[in-house]
């Protein structure tokens, strides 16, 4: 009975390959490169090492948040509290970062701890209650904002040590620390997602929770892990932001959640869970960053910038999906 299958396999396998592992991603990459080429033609200031470095620096905070939320969305969840976590962790870190108080590791650790604890709380409520993650994290988004204001007394926490400010604002061998950290985070997140059992289970939980459960996967533990991871990455973003603007702002990060989620979804993460890649998310974040930078360089009037921004983002994803269609 083997004989009958060979033909249909071959064609099935080609059609799936193009879609899944291959060109699908490149559709977005193509759209992204197209925009870059267009900008290079339109303004000579775009394609300079300095400007490209600025773009990556600017993108890095959003990209870190987007990585975290990609984990969460892959499991079929959502995290709206990342913006507030940026504020809380930033304020916490800043409170320990005044000159001549603690060594720089302390604000770092305290900030990360705050983010991990916040994320774990999200995970705990999501797994222990029947409440949809949207509501849980919308709730903790509000709570987090309040906490940041309470902790900072509603005022920016400033006067931070130089070593702390170096974390997000310095350069190593001419390369901004933010870019280095972004690359490290990207590689780590990719490894977690693609090479570890945990990553596999994320896809499983998001792809079909019942099936995951039936395979003996501890669904609750996986969810705890992704929300905690997301909290940790938000903390990293919060610390870097604080260090970059040399203040812990209680109102920092407002609205960041939408940008981060947008980067993930533009990058091909499905809102219904079960699919998504870090590379896609990174390209998504870069796309947003490049458009925003390009519009500034081209001196497009502020109001029109928003219109153009919206159109290009929809356009890029349309291009991406058209590309997938013709390949299918």
């Amino acid at each position, binding site marked *: *009975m*083997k*004989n*009958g*299958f*060979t*033909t*249909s*396999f071959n*064609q*099935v*396998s080609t*059609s*799936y390959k193009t879609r*899944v592992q291959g060109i699908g991603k490149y559709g977005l990459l193509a759209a992204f490169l197209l925009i870059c080429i267009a900008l290079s033609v339109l303004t000579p200031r775009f394609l300079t090492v300095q400007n490209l470095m600025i773009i990556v620096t600017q993108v890095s905070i959003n990209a870190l948040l987007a990585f975290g939320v990609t984990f969460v969305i892959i499991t079929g969840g959502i995290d709206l509290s990342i913006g507030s976590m940026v504020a809380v962790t930033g304020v916490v870190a800043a409170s320990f970062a005044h000159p001549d108080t603690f060594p720089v590791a302390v604000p770092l650790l305290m900030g990360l701890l705050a983010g991990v604890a916040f994320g774990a709380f999200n995970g705990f409520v999501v797994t222990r209650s029947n409440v949809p993650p949207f509501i849980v994290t919308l709730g903790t988004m509000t709570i987090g904002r309040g906490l940041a204001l309470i902790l900072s007394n509603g005022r920016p926490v400033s006067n931070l040590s130089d070593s702390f400010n170096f974390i997000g604002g310095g350069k190593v061998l001419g390369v901004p620390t933010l870019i280095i950290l972004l690359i490290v985070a990207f590689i780590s997140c990719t490894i*977690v997602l*693609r*090479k*570890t*059992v*945990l*990553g*596999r*289970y994320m*896809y*499983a939980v998001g*792809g*079909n929770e*019942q*099936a*995951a*459960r*039936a*395979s*003996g*996967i*501890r669904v609750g*533990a*996986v969810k705890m*892990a992704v929300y905690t991871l997301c909290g940790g990455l938000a903390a990293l973003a919060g610390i870097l932001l604080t260090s970059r603007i040399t203040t812990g702002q209680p109102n920092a990060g407002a609205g960041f959640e939408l940008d981060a989620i947008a980067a993930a979804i533009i990058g091909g993460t499905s809102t219904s869970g*079960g*699919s998504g890649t870090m590379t896609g998310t990174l390209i998504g974040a870069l796309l947003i960053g490049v458009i925003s930078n390009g519009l500034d360089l081209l001196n497009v009037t502020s109001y029109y910038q928003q219109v153009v921004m919206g159109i290009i983002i929809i356009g890029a994803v349309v291009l991406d999906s058209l590309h997938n269609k013709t390949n299918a």
Partner: protein
Amino acid sequence: MTSDTILQVRGLTKTFSGVKALDDVQLTIRKGEVHALMGENGAGKSTLMKILIGLLTPDSGEILFEGNDLTTGNVGDVLKRGISMIHQEMLMIPELTVAQNIFLGRERSGGLLRWLDDRRLTEKAGALLEQMGVAIRPDMPVKYLSVAQMQMVEIARAISNNASVIIMDEPTSALADAEVATLFRIIGELTRQGVAIIYISHKMDEIFTIADTVTVLRDGKYIATRPAAELDIDTLIALMVGRKLDSLFPVPDGVPAGEVMLSVDGLGRRGVFADISFEVRAGEVLGIAGLMGAGRTEIARAIFGLDRISQGEIRIRGKRVVIHSPQDAIGHGIGYVSEDRKGWGFIPGMSVRENLTLASLRKWSSGPFIRDKQERDVATAMMGELNVKATGPDQLVTYLSGGNQQKVVIGNRLLAQPAILILDEPTRGIDIGAKAEIYRLIHQWQQRGVAIIMISSELPEILGMSDRIMVLAQGKQTTMLSRHEASQETIMRYAMHRDRDTGPTGE
């Protein structure tokens, strides 16, 4: 408990929102036996199995596995202790590959941050599938598999766990005879090694082929356990249904077929099927037979407008039509019951009533408004006609047993009063009583002049219902048999037919 008893269940009870799905059920499984669990749709078989595997927790009762208590309610634990399960609803992760699905949860012992070795998984899965004699690529995402292929993957997953008890909940519902034979061969090997199999199926012949012992449930209650050798089909049906059943297939009444309703000429879809030509008349049943992957479903999908065709034409009542979408097809009076009832059949979050009337809703409404009472009456009547077992028209379809869900899907299409009805595996997972009802219904609609195309992997069904039978092999039409010409042997011969033109295939 005798020495070779491996699993014992006593006094098990489970209630869903006040309805008793299981009521004081018992079950004893011995090493190396094939123990069939029988019962009508909704009898509680799957519920019992889900409790065994730890997916559901019972309200009361005890489960002993190898002498120890098993009521932990933790699937991972149960799997590790040596029980595995083929799930009726094929629980798989669409985006993951065959290999990744087979070894899901068992990638490696240890923590969540352990390293994955996908190449090893793929090799292992490839070897396993090869050993089973199944040609499925281990690196293909399961979302591209046909239902039958998925079922084979489910089987591979269950047997790869080195379990001492394997639960098989309707493992063959989507399989044709050849694959069923493969499964039986595997079961034979396993039982020889002392593995116990709990086997659930609505296909009676399978039970009498492989079962050693049979336990019957009815309405959630334990009825009896008998050695299979002491049972005959009528006794078994009587135990399951609580009464005797009349003949399965209606007697053909020789009513002459009417005008040609649907004709298809040289239909093809690149790489899937080609040169398909046939016609169906009003009041006629055309059966389509073939092996798994022969392309039967693909033809149905193409006619219904779900897939594009690359050549050929479709005529309805002699007029050439172009069908681009299901709406087009429905506009031309075609109704389609998919083999994949969860994917294309019903809306799980809707009630039985809403599902039944969905395709014909315009008929039960004035302007934009639904006529509530009429809708309810129509639905209730259809529930009666199909004998749908539900707490009422407002019960959600998700909570129905598989067979009853299938009836709801058929009822939905029937209410739309199609002139041409395509049924793809219409009795998949349906108990014998319900099967008889569905055959009776098909017959009734045939008498009313509906042209029916019935795709089925169950040869008795094809033979029992069809006026003519088209056989496919590798996407090509190999013969068209009349009712008198057809027999299991002829159909199988044509289904295995290898077309010279395609040249040698395979390695």
